[in-house]
């Protein structure tokens, strides 16, 4: 039982990281139907920025918020400069462009900071905490708290602010939104900025665990894809639930089902992805899209 609880909590922690990145993917997909293959690399880049700030002697939490601010500007800039020219292009074109970004940013990370692995300071103490006779890692609990807080803040933003409402309008019906005076282009850019911030958050949370290197987020991105598809690519709540579910499921499978060795974690996630795509492409929370011909 003790082991089970520990595994669930540490699964929720990695699930929180997947959920943040999955939510970033969903934010962008919802408004433009673009799957941003560069989301993971954008997150890695911003995590390197945080590492650099800390390396220069900036206190951790200052660097943390400075990085989030940078990530926002970075995301907006990428949408305006790189993605905007392809706004109305075919899906294939946009997918190829985001893959170009993926390769480009991956190379830049290595160019600027070198390919060797860097250790990353954790935001939370690494000692365990005792709750009801079961030892949990404070690190895990901190990660869960931060991810849930971010999701909550984002929900408040979309629910109760004017900009949030405008962004939702731009995503649901761009033409009508434009008629009522919403600047749809900038709303898309804002979406990229927020997504980039969520990505940075997931990078900052996972870096102390897996260490920082240019390929750090590649695997996390796949888990995030699986989580987003599991919850439904159209549904922000689905992304969060999908992420947490996936994190716990992978951890429990790894602990109790012996043929699932660490190497198989990734293929299992992919299997989830494929099965959902084939059986219920709209995911657990998504609505089925009717295609008119």
């Amino acid at each position: 039982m003790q082991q089970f609880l520990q595994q669930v909590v540490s699964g929720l922690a990695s699930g929180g990281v997947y959920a943040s990145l999955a939510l970033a993917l969903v934010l962008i997909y919802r408004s433009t139907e673009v799957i941003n293959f560069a989301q993971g690399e954008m997150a890695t880049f911003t995590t390197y920025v945080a590492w650099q700030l800390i390396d220069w002697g900036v206190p951790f939490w200052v660097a943390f918020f400075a990085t989030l601010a940078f990530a926002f500007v970075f995301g907006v800039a990428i949408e305006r400069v790189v993605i905007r020219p392809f706004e109305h292009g075919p899906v294939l074109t946009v997918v190829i462009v985001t893959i170009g970004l993926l390769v480009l940013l991956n190379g830049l990370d290595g160019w600027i900071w070198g390919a060797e692995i860097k250790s990353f300071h954790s935001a939370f103490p690494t000692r365990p905490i005792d709750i009801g006779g079961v030892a949990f890692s404070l690190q895990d609990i901190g990660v869960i708290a931060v991810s849930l807080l971010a999701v909550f803040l984002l929900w408040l933003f979309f629910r109760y602010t004017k900009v949030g409402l405008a962004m939702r309008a731009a995503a649901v019906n761009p033409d009508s939104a434009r008629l009522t005076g919403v600047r749809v282009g900038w709303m898309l850019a804002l979406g990229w900025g927020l997504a980039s911030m969520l990505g940075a958050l997931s990078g900052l949370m996972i870096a102390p665990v897996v260490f920082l290197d240019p390929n750090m987020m590649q695997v996390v991105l796949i888990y995030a894809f699986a989580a987003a598809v599991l919850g439904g690519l159209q549904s922000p709540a689905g992304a969060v639930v999908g992420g947490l579910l996936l994190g716990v499921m992978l951890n429990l499978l790894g602990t109790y089902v012996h043929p699932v060795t660490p190497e198989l974690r990734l293929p299992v996630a992919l299997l989830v992805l494929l099965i959902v795509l084939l059986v219920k492409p709209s995911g657990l929370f998504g609505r089925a899209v009717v295609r008119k011909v």
Partner: protein
Amino acid sequence: MRGERLVKLGAIAGGAALVVVLGFTMTDYHQYQGGIVAYYLIAILGLNILTGYTGQISLGNGAFMAVGGYTTAILCGHHGWPELATIPVAAAVAGAAGFLFGIPALRLAGPYLALATFAIAVAVPSLAKRFDHFTGGSSGITLPIHTGHYLYWASWICAGIGYVVAWLVLRGRTGRAFRAVRDSEVAAVSSGVNLASYKTLAFGISAAYAGVAGALLAIGAAYTNPDTFPVTLSLYLLIGAVVGGLGSLWGVIFGALFIEYLPIYAQKTYFGFAFSKQAPSVVYGLVLILIMLVAPTGIVGLARRLRRSI
């Protein structure tokens, strides 16, 4: 029209002659690189049939290269087959894998298909590590070592055959059906094209080409392990296909030259300024985005546009 045909025939004859001459004159090292160009050409050709002609994006053709590469490595390294005899088997096994993957892929379109194929590309190295009984795990399988000359000729002969087969397939009924599927699925179905069979066929053909390329890669490297077929390989194939021009058989050679030689030249020192080891990735990414911006039809499309405007 007649003149254009003569020019094309001349270009093909000239290209073939150049390949033969280079095969006797270049140093062994350069022939080795030339061989790599040839197997990239084969893989990009396969991807182009699927993505360029049938409109189905694949970010996972590197995975089918892995299937072909491991088929060759296992037959040759564990069972003592001669290398060249394994190539048709590699094509068949990878083709079958592609065909099978094409069946579920029928239900996916656009970004979803991109996701699913990407997932396959990412999964292959971990699967190869897990099932180490067959694949030798991380320590891999060793094959006999050959000269660059050997790889050059093996690869270019396969590339020549692959080119002719692709041309034959694409010029006739099948090619027309592929293009119809790409341009409008609804229109294709209404004209009696069976979507399911042509899409899975395109996946199968594409994967068979990737299998041959993977087999040649394994023969050339004389070694396979899970890291021989990384995710980036799949992405580079897509970059090559885009650079050459999706939907064109002519551009494939430029795509192959681009992905083989760019890293080599991007790492040299120019005017005392040395680029980093990571420079190729940065250039790849930039080139990919710029090409989509200014010449979405690749080098061949650009050339066509220039010729029209003159």
